[in-house]
C-alpha cells in the first residue's frame, strides 16, 4: 500500500475496520516499517528441502491442538479400577485409571479415536521431520556461521522431542509401553552411584509404583512442551533475524536473498502446506491404526509379547541394547553394567554430541571463519557428507537391529546371526560408508569440472568426415554455471612445522592437537579444482597427481573462495 504495485488492479479500498485497526495499532506501536519489511515483504527462498522444517513446526502445532483435546478426557492416575466400559473384551479386568480413560477416549468419546491417532501419528511425523530437517541442514552446511546457535537449539529440540515422545506413549499404561518403561527404569538403575536413587525418586519407589504416570503426564503436557515452545520461538526468530539460507543459483550471492515475499505468497503456500500435513495425518489416522492399546492390554510386570517394538525413534536405543555383548564389571562390592550403560549413552551421545560439536570442529579444521548464506552442495564438502552418511549408516544399523527378531523371522536368518552381522556392521559400516561417499562426492566433482570445462553431453552423435563418431558437448547455460561455480574450496592451512614469511613457526601446527588439525585439514581440503588452470598454479601440495590424468590432480589449489571481507576474526 505504500508503493506502486506490481499488479495494476489495486483500485480497491482496504476495508475501513482493517485500516482503522492498523492505524490504531500503529499510533501506539509504530510498526508500519517493520511490518512491511520484516513481515509482509520478507523474502522466502524457494526449495523443496526448506519445507522439511515446516513439517516439524506444523506437526508440533497439531500436537498441541490434539493434545489439548486428549487432556480433557485423560486421567493421569495409576489407581486401580475395574473396567466396565464399551470394550467388552476387557470387561471386569483390573486396570489403571490412565488405561481406562484411554479406552474411554478411544471407544466412548466421539472423534476421540481419531484425535488420539492423529496425536500419535503427528508425534511420529514430528520426530521424523526433525531428523530429515537436521540431515538437510547438515548436508548443505546450513549450520555454518552465523547459524551455529540455531543448530544447537535444533539439536536440543530433537533431544527433547525424544523424551516427549517416550513419555507420551507411556502414559496409557498399556502392556507395550509398560515394558518400555521397565526397560527405561532398568537402564536408570544401571547408572553408577546415583542410578538406584534416580529410579526410586522418579518412580516414587520400586517399579512400577503409583507415581510415574502422573509425573510423566505433567512433564509431557507442561514442562517439555513449554521448553519446546520457547526454543521453537527462538529458533524461528533467529531464522527471521539472520534470514534464510539459499541454494546456489544465478544471482544468488552471500549479500542477498532471493525468493517470494511473505505476503501473500509464502503465507498462502505455507498455509496450504500446513493444511496438507494436517490432511495427511487425518488420512493416516483414518486408515492406519496406531498404538491399539486395547489389543496390548493393561500393563502387567509378568507378561510380555514377542516382537514388541517401541515407536520408531526409540529403535536406535532398542537396537543398541540388543547388539551389545554382555559386559559387566564387579569390583569392590559394586557393579558397573556396560551392557546397559553403553547402549544408553553412546549411540545418541555420538550422534547428538557429534552433531553439536561438528560446526566447531569443521571451523577448526578448515580455518573457515566466513559467513555462509549460500548452501553447499553436498558433493562439494566430501568429508562432511561422508561423515554424515557414516552417521546415517551407524544409526540405521542400530535401528534395524532394534527389530532383529522381526528381521530374523522375515528373512529366515538365525536370530544370533542377525545380531552378529549388526555387531560388525555398526563399526565397519560407517567407515565403509564414509570412504565410498567421499569417493562419490569427488567423482561428482570431476563430473562438474568436466561440464564446466567441456560442456555437458548433449546426446547428439555426430559423424566426422573420417568416419569417427563423437558426441557433441554443449556449454552449460548461465543458471547451471552459477551452480557449478558456487563451489568453494577449503584452504590448506600451513603445514605443521612450516614457517611463515618471517621464519616464525606456525603456532597452530604444534602439539598433538596441531597435528590432528593438519590431518583433518588435509582431508577437508581434498577437492577437484574447478578452475581451468587448477593444476597450473604451483600448489600441487601432496602430489597426488595420477600419471596421464593430471587434470584429476587431487589437492587444494592455493586460491580459496572466501568472500572478500568476510573472514572476520571472532
Amino acid at each position, binding site marked *: 500500500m505504500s508503493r506502486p504495485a506490481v499488479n495494476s488492479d489495486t483500485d480497491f479500498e482496504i476495508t475501513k475496520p482493517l485500516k482503522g485497526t492498523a492505524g490504531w495499532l500503529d499510533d501506539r506501536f509504530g510498526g508500519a516499517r517493520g511490518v512491511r519489511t520484516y513481515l509482509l515483504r520478507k523474502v522466502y527462498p524457494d526449495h523443496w528441502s526448506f519445507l522439511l522444517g515446516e513439517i516439524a513446526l506444523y506437526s508440533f502445532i497439531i500436537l498441541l491442538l490434539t493434545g489439548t483435546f486428549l487432556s480433557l478426557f485423560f486421567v493421569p492416575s495409576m489407581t486401580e479400577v475395574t473396567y466396565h466400559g464399551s470394550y467388552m473384551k476387557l470387561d471386569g479386568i483390573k486396570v489403571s485409571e490412565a488405561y481406562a480413560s484411554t479406552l474411554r477416549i478411544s471407544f466412548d468419546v466421539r472423534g476421540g479415536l481419531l484425535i488420539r491417532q492423529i496425536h500419535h501419528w503427528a508425534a511420529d511425523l514430528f520426530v521424523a521431520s526433525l531428523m530429515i530437517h537436521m540431515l538437510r541442514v547438515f548436508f548443505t552446511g546450513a549450520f555454518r556461521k552465523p547459524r551455529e546457535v540455531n543448530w544447537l537449539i535444533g539439536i536440543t529440540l530433537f533431544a527433547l522431542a525424544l523424551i516427549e515422545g517416550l513419555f507420551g506413549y507411556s502414559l496409557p499404561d498399556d502392556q507395550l509401553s509398560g515394558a518400555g518403561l521397565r526397560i527405561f527404569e532398568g537402564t536408570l*538403575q544401571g547408572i553408577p552411584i*546415583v542410578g538406584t536413587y534416580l529410579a526410586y525418586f522418579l518412580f516414587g519407589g520400586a517399579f512400577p509404583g503409583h507415581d510415574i504416570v502422573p509425573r510423566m503426564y505433567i512433564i509431557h503436557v507442561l514442562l517439555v512442551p513449554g521448553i519446546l515452545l520457547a526454543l521453537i520461538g527462538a529458533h524461528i526468530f533467529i531464522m527471521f533475524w539472520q534470514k534464510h539460507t539459499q541454494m546456489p543459483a544465478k544471482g544468488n550471492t552471500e549479500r542477498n536473498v532471493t525468493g517470494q515475499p511473505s505476503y501473500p505468497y509464502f503465507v498462502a503456500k505455507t498455509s496450504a502446506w500446513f493444511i496438507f500435513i494436517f490432511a495427511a495425518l487425518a488420512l493416516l489416522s483414518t486408515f492406519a491404526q496406531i498404538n491399539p492399546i486395547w489389543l496390548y492390554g493393561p500393563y502387567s510386570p509378568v507378561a510380555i509379547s514377542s516382537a514388541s517394538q517401541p515407536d520408531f525413534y526409540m529403535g536406535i536405543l532398542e537396537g543398541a541394547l540388543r547388539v551389545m555383548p554382555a559386559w559387566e564389571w564387579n569390583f569392590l562390592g559394586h557393579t558397573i553394567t556396560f551392557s546397559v550403560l553403553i547402549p544408553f549413552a553412546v549411540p545418541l551421545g555420538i550422534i547428538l554430541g557429534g552433531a553439536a560439536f561438528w560446526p566447531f570442529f569443521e571451523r577448526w579444521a578448515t580455518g573457515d571463519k566466513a559467513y555462509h548464506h549460500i548452501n553447499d552442495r553436498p558433493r562439494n564438502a566430501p568429508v562432511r557428507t561422508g561423515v554424515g552418511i557414516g552417521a546415517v549408516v551407524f544409526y540405521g544399523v542400530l535401528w534395524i537391529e532394534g527389530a532383529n527378531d522381526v528381521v530374523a523371522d522375515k528373512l529366515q536368518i538365525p536370530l544370533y546371526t542377525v545380531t552378529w552381522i549388526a555387531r560388525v556392521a555398526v563399526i565397519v559400516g560407517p567407515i565403509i560408508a564414509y570412504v565410498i561417499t567421499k569417493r562419490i562426492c569427488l567423482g561428482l566433482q570431476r563430473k562438474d569440472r568436466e561440464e564446466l570445462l567441456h560442456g555437458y553431453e548433449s546426446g547428439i552423435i555426430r559423424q566426422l568426415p573420417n568416419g569417427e563418431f563423437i558426441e557433441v558437448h554443449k556449454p552449460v547455460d548461465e543458471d547451471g554455471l552459477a551452480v557449478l561455480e558456487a563451489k568453494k574450496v577449503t584452504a590448506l592451512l600451513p603445514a605443521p612445522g612450516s614457517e611463515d614469511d618471517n621464519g616464525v613457526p606456525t603456532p597452530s601446527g604444534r602439539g598433538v592437537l596441531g597435528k590432528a588439525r593438519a590431518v583433518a585439514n588435509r582431508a577437508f581440503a581434498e577437492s577437484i579444482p574447478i578452475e581451468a588452470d587448477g593444476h597450473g598454479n604451483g600448489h600441487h601440495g601432496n602430489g597426488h597427481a595420477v600419471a596421464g590424468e593430471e587434470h584429476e590432480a587431487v589437492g587444494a589449489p592455493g586460491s580459496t573462495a572466501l568472500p572478500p571481507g568476510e573472514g572476520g576474526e571472532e
Partner: protein
Amino acid sequence: MSDMEETEGTEGTESPGAPHRVIGTPPPSPRLLGSAAVPEEPGAGAVALVSDSDEFAEHLEGLPPDDPKVIVHDRRAERVVAACFIIAFIAGCGFVAAYVGLGVHTIDDTLRSNLALGLSLSVTLLGLGLGTLIWVRNLMPNLEVTQQRHDLRSPEKERLATEAYFKEGTANSQFVKRPLVRRTLMLGTLPLLAAPVVLLRDLGPQPGTSLRHTVWSPGRRLLVEGTNRPITPAEFSAPGSMITIVPEGYEDDQDALTKAAVILIKFRPGELHIPTRHQGSTLVGTMNWTVDNIVAYSKICTHVGCPVALYEQTTHHILCPCHQSTFEATTGATVIFGPAARPLPQLPMTTDAQGYLVARRDFTEPVGPSFWERG
C-alpha cells in the same frame, strides 16, 4: 544436468504461455521508485511514499495480465479453486453430520464413526489445501524478490561504545571494587541454589536394600499366574513345559511381582545339571532347591528387567523377547547369548505338608537388572 532441481524454484505453472524462468536480480526498474502520494494522517498533508528499492528488487515473470491467453487460463483456474473450496465446505458439513449422527460405544460403531469423521476431515483439509495451492500458483502473479542482507556483525564503534558503557556501569555498581559485597552476595545465594535439590528429596524413598529382596519367604506358596491356585509337583508333570508363578498373597501386587515373578520348568529325569551357585563368594549346590526335576527361576531378566517369557522345549533355552538374552535352563539359566550378564537367579523350592510347592526361602541374590550397589 542432473542438478537442475537445485536451481529450479516452484515456478512450473501450467499456464498456456508458461514464461521462461529468469533467475537473478534484474536492474532496478523505474516502477519501483515511489512517486505516487497518498495522505497519511488527517491534517498531515500529502507525503511522498517510502521506497524500499534499496533493499528489495522485484522481478515479475509471465505474460501481462490482459493477455487473452492469461484471461482464459485465469478464469479456468478461478473455477477450479472455487470447486475445491466448495468440496471442502460439503465435506466439512459431512464432518459435523457424522459427529451428530454416528454414535460410538461399540467397536463397530467406533470404527464407522472414525472412518466417517476421518474421511470428511481429510477431504475438507485436502479441498482447502489444494484450492489454496492452485490459487497461489495460477492466479497470483509470479513475483520474485531479491532482498539485500545486512551485516549481522555490529560496526566496530558500536561494539566499543557498548563495551565502554558496560565498563562504566560496572564501575558505578561498585561490584568489582567492593569484594565484601560481592562475596557475601554469592554466599547468600549459594544455599538457595541447593533448594531445588532439597525440595526434590521426597520424590521417593531411598532404595536401601529393597532391591536385594523379594516377597518370597520360607513356606510361601507358589501360585499359578492367572488362576492363582497352588500347584503340586504331580500337577506339573509334563516335561518341557513352562508356567509363570506368582507368590501367594501378592497375586495382584505389581510392585511385588516386578521382582518376585518366577518361571517353573519341568525336566525329564537326568536333564537337569544345575551344578553350583554363587552365594556371596561361596559356591553352593542348588540341586536340592529343585523338586522332582522342577526348577524355579526368576522371570525377571538380569539385563533390564523384561519378563523372560519364551521357552524353547527342544533346546531348553529361555529367551527374553525384549533383547534376546538367552539362558540355558538345564545348567542354572546361564547366559548363552545376548546382553544379559548374569544367570537368572534360582528360587529355592520345597513342598509343604499338603504337597504344594512352596519357597524354601527368598532368592539368595538380587533379581533383575544390575545396579551399582549390587556387588
